[in-house]
Structure formats: structure tokens, C-alpha cells
């Protein structure tokens, strides 16, 4: 079972929920798809077993064969190519690796080469397999890296996918194969606004989902009001607890340290399992 954890904004507690949920299972895979700033490994401190480069295909030009016919420039809808003063300029960061320029080139002057954009680290932390995606600084899109992570998730056991914030392409790629989505939110108006964005996204993807209200305090909770209004199931309310702050700041996992939190996250897992495979 694959559970994706997402939120519209950063800092609501996606990684906190993902890490603890994975630990609440006896055996699980934790996948960090927030490839621009993966931080789940800070809690798991996994022993790294394997590291693989993630590459994308980009066009490689043979200057001698190019007749400057410009067919590739005209074809590229991402505007990754320009022909200036008889020189074909290639803008790799715009390239979506569609391979179209190679096909339309009548001279065979373009071929594809691999360009490294990041890496995957696979490791172990007790019974938890930890997969961390890392995008190189300056790269534009983490989608190819997330794609590689998702491919590695086992069909059996439980996988928890720690998504990037927002609702853009990188998030869609992260939740594509998920059996269930957890939306993490906090009791602020900003939190609700961004919860509404991911709510629309999971509805669009037709995924079963539930909300975790994080950082709950006494007083009004606009995120809870949103859930009640929309009839969204609330999986859990996690208090704005100083003890959690202390554990987090020390890179400790609450489920491994505190029996109450172990029971809380086991309860969430149980609820989700029952909903996904009744």
C-alpha cells in the first residue's frame, strides 16, 4: 500500500507525518520526493546501501552534419533551441527530453546524450528502507527524479511518499501511484488556502484521502472548519506540542521515543488500511 503525504504549503508537517507513519509500520519504505530539499534522512540517519545517478536525455549536436535548416528549432515547443548566426544553441534546462528534435533532423546531426540532474540514495534505518531523491542545484524540474523513486517502491508492504509542497507537476508525479493521500494542514488561514489546493488535486486524481490537522491549539481551527464544511474525513489531530518540537529539533522520531505517538500513528495506519482494503 502506497500512502502519499502532501500539503499545499511547506512547514505544515509532511515530513513529520511521513517519517512517523513509516515508523509506525513494522516494515515500510519511506520515500523522500521533496527532491529540492529532502530532509527525512535527518531523522532516519539511514545506512546508505546504494547511490544511483538520475539522468535525462538531451540533444547532442554534430556541428559538421548540421545544415542549419532550423527544423529542430521550429519543432521544439519548449523553446530549448535557437539558431543564431549559423550556430545552434541548446538550452538544456528548457529541454523536456521528448526526443522530437532528433526525429525531425533530416541530417542525423542530433543524437541524445545523458545529462545528470540528480541522484537517488537508498539506505536502511532499522526496518525502514529509506529512499532519498536529490536534485542538483540549478536544475529546473525534479519530475524525472521522482519518477525514478516511485518506480522503486515495492508493491507489498507499506510505502510512505513524502511529497514536495504545493500542487504542481512534482506533486502529481509523487501521488500518481498512491493508494491513499494524507493532506497535512495547520490551523491558519494560509494553511486552509493551501489545503484547498491539494484537496482539489486529490479529487481530480480520484484518490481516497483524509486530513491530518497538525499543530492544533485551543481556539478556532479554520482548517477543521474547512474539513467539516466539505465533509472530509479527519484522520487525526496532532497537538502543538512542545515535546514534539524538542524531539524534532534533535532529529528524533516521536514514534520511536514516545508510546502515545506510536499509538496515534498506528491508529492512523489502521484507519487507512481499513479504508484502502476493507
Amino acid at each position, binding site marked *: 500500500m502506497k500512502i502519499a503525504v502532501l500539503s499545499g504549503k511547506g512547514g505544515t508537517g509532511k515530513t513529520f507525518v511521513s517519517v512517523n507513519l513509516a515508523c509506525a509500520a513494522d516494515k515500510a519504505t519511506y520515500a523522500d520526493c521533496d527532491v529540492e530539499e529532502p530532509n527525512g534522512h535527518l531523522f532516519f540517519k539511514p545506512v546508505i546501501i546504494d547511490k544511483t545517478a538520475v539522468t535525462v536525455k538531451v540533444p547532442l549536436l554534430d556541428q559538421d552534419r548540421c545544415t542549419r535548416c532550423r527544423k529542430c528549432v521550429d519543432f521544439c515547443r519548449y*523553446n530549448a533551441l535557437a539558431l543564431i548566426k549559423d550556430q545552434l544553441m541548446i538550452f538544456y*534546462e528548457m529541454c523536456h527530453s521528448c526526443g522530437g528534435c532528433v526525429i525531425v533532423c533530416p541530417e542525423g546531426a542530433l543524437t541524445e546524450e545523458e545529462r545528470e540532474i540528480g541522484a537517488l540514495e537508498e539506505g536502511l534505518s532499522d526496518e525502514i528502507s529509506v529512499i532519498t531523491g536529490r536534485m542538483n542545484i540549478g536544475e*529546473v524540474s*525534479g519530475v524525472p527524479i521522482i519518477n525514478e523513486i516511485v518506480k522503486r517502491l515495492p508493491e507489498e508492504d507499506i510505502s510512505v511518499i513524502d511529497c514536495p509542497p504545493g500542487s504542481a507537476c512534482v506533486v502529481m508525479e509523487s501521488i500518481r501511484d498512491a493508494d491513499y493521500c494524507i493532506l497535512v494542514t495547520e490551523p491558519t488561514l494560509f494553511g486552509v488556502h493551501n489545503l484547498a489546493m491539494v484537496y482539489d488535486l486529490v479529487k481530480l486524481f480520484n484518490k481516497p484521502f483524509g486530513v491530518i490537522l497538525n499543530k492544533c491549539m485551543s481556539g478556532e481551527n479554520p482548517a477543521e472548519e474547512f474539513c467539516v464544511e466539505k465533509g472530509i474525513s479527519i484522520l487525526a489531530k496532532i497537538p502543538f506540542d512542545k515535546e514534539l518540537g524538542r524531539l524534532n529539533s534533535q532529529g528524533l522520531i516521536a514514534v520511536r521515543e514516545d508510546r502515545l505517538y506510536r499509538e496515534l500513528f498506528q491508529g492512523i495506519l489502521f484507519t487507512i488500511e481499513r479504508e484502502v482494503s476493507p
Partner: protein
Amino acid sequence: MKIIIPTETKSQDAPVCPSFGRAPIYAIYDTEGEAYEFLENIAADSSSGAGIKAAQIVADSGADALITYRCGENAANILETAKVKIYKAQQGTIAEHVAMYIDEELPLLTESHPGFHNGGRRGR
């Protein structure tokens, strides 16, 4: 000598468009014929890489100079290769900018930004 300036409408009295790559129109002034020509910017609607395509259009137009408020890194690289000089736009209309260019009153644009869309940052 041809000067190209991004603008909103086909008029020499229009202001300079704040965007280079996504400006709807380019005004081209030919100092020899002392006449304006207006070109629709087909790069304006690109989902990504508008600046690259727009710079290609500028290079293809045979312009010697571009007057703009700002210019992305990729476009600036193309224009440098194409030997198109980039000048910084000031307050005023297209015609006033042409006059400032002829009187050599326009400074060169020395800074290029890293792009606003897929060229530079991810959309969250």
C-alpha cells in the same frame, strides 16, 4: 541600423512593455528609412522559453539594438551571440526611446535576471 523595442500596441506613442519575451508587439525602427514596422510576438504565449524564442525573433529581424527594461539570462546569451546590443529602457514612449537612442542617451542593460518561469524557478 534597426532598433527593436517591446511594446503593447502598434503605435510609436505606446510605452515600452515591461516584459521582453512576453510583450505582444515589437516595434522596429529603421534609422535609414526613418520608418516604424510592427511585429506580432509569436513567442508571447509560449508555456516556457518565451525569452529564448523572442531573442530568436529579434535576431531574425536583423535588429542591431534592443531597448528593454529587463532581459532574461538565456535571451541575453542569444542576443550576445547575435551581436545585438541591449539598452535599458527609461520612462517614455517608443518614439522618445528612438530619439534617446539616436542621441546616445540610453545606457546599456548590464544585468540579466535568471528567468521567471520554467527557465529559472520551479512553480510551487
